[in-house]
């Protein structure tokens, strides 16, 4: 009996040891180690003055060791990106730019990773106050990584930069350019998730341009073109923001919601729409009450 128990313990230990050894250099162990580094990184306070310099240096060292140990794994891509972000946070711009360039070359098949690296490169130049080079990099991000979330947002980001840095003429020009850019891309990618992304960015651009009528038209078009429940949930809120808050046309919002409700009965989306309709009715009642009080006086 004792021999049997011992044999069982030995066999289980051998199976564990063999599987552990096989996975030592693989994605399985790499993901585990990278998860620990990510956890330390996320727990690090964002304000570098409050952080012990040792903390950031420790994570940098861990990331470099991790990349050396697991160079061919999927987690290595994310480790490279995290290291570039860390260099940017520590204002080691030369290292951030060099590493970002390396990432865009090494992982050029992975558009998502490359687009983030390109963004880090552009941001490095921006923070260094070399706006001309930053703009060149943002242009690369915009035209070569259009189909990624980061790349798609690049034109709006550039326009926001001008708006926040007291350059209203350049901001207007950039917003108009962004609106044309998104409009063209939305038409090319209609009925896809990318098309919805471009549509949302187009609405955001018109809102920044304070052209709420055009924003409203885009939202109405999106409700027709992107009828999936997941897409409609976000559009319901956009209808409220544009037609009720900006254009003060609650009757138009009510019309759109009534149309949507006919298509989406007995679902979480329908409940969301009903909440919005209830909100609008309360607003209407409140404004009627206010009007009566004013007339009464």
């Amino acid at each position, binding site marked *: *009996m004792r021999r*049997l*128990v011992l044999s*069982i313990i030995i*066999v*289980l230990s051998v*199976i*564990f040891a063999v*599987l*552990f050894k*096989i*996975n030592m250099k*693989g*994605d*399985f*162990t790499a*993901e*585990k180690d990278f*998860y620990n580094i990510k956890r330390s990184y996320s727990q690090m306070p964002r304000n570098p003055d409050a952080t012990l310099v040792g903390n950031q240096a420790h994570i940098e060292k861990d990331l470099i060791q991790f990349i050396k140990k697991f160079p061919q794994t999927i987690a290595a891509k994310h480790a490279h990106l995290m290291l570039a972000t860390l260099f940017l946070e520590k204002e080691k711009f030369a290292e951030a730019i060099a590493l970002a360039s390396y990432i865009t070359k090494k992982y050029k098949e992975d558009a998502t990773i490359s687009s983030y690296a390109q963004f880090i490169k552009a941001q490095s130049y921006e923070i260094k106050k070399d706006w001309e080079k930053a703009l060149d990099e943002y242009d690369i991000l915009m035209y070569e990584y259009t189909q990624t979330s980061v790349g798609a947002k690049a034109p709006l980001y550039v326009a926001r930069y001008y708006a926040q840095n007291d350059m209203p003429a350049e901001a207007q020009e950039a917003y108009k350019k962004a609106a044309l850019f998104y409009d063209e891309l939305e038409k090319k990618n209609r009925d896809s998730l990318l098309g919805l992304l471009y549509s949302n960015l187009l609405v955001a651009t018109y809102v920044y341009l304070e052209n709420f009528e055009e924003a409203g038209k885009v939202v109405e078009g999106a409700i027709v073109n992107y009828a999936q429940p997941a897409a409609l949930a976000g559009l319901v809120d956009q209808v409220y923001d544009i037609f009720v808050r900006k254009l003060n046309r609650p009757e138009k919002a009510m019309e759109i919601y009534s149309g949507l409700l006919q298509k989406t009965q007995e679902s979480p989306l329908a409940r969301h729409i009903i909440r919005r309709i209830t909100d609008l009715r309360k607003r209407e009642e409140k404004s009627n009450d206010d009007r009566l009080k004013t007339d009464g006086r």
Partner: protein
Amino acid sequence: MKYSVVANWADSLEIMTKRPFVMIPFLIAGFLEAVALELIYFSSGEPLGHIMNPIIKKFFGEAFAHFPGNLLIVPKLFFFAQVMITAVIGMFLTALTIYMADQVIKRKAINIKDALKKLSRRYVSIFIYAVLVIALGYFLKIIANIALHSIIRPMVSFLPRMIMKSMTFWLSSAIFLIMVCVNTFFILTIPILVVNGSSMARCIGESIFRGGRNYITLCKTVCTPFLLYIPIIFLKAFSTQLVRRTLPVSVLIVGIAGIFVIKYIECFVAISATRFLLDTQKIKRRKRKGASK
């Protein structure tokens, strides 16, 4: 005459300590489950990942094919593995232990070859019974979950914070004990099959009848040992926190420890149930003899 539960336990423990070979079938079942658990732990890696990752991505999602999501589905995958092992061989091995315990109690020689021959003839019945018990346990778990949640939900705002934080543990323990209490009606099925050799349907019927008739005594005999499993339920309920504070492999260690603890308890309960059956049969025979005199 009142049945002595403590005497039953003492006898069962004596059998397990003096004739430890009766535990070998449960040890084998435990070993198979432990191997399954280890393979599941490494199912996202090499070489099993090539087979398991597409299945995990299809049924659970992309996130669960990577760390740390893969640790969250270890209990679910292990449940399926346990069901397969119990149905295919686990219940058969339980029957083998009960046969050996029966022979030890009757002071007869144990012939493993004969035992395997005899029980192999009843393999299909044992397999069907295992599937029925697993299905019953599964549906009972769902019903118990719904019932407990509907009781607790209105009380949520009144419950102390300490209880709310450990609600997973309390719910898991409650469901476990409910299932053990219901299992009391079926615990004598395999002992009756091995000792009396009746058909499976008759064994189930007789087990439910005897379970109902001697519910309190049988429940005490069977349920109390399962209370020893509560610390393992506690560790499993807080496995996420355990992984965060220690190492990911702690999930595997707790899992394997849990397997062998439950197998030991199940072996003890199987022998206790067999002892109970034989004792009650003896008491019945004595009563009949006394009445005929």
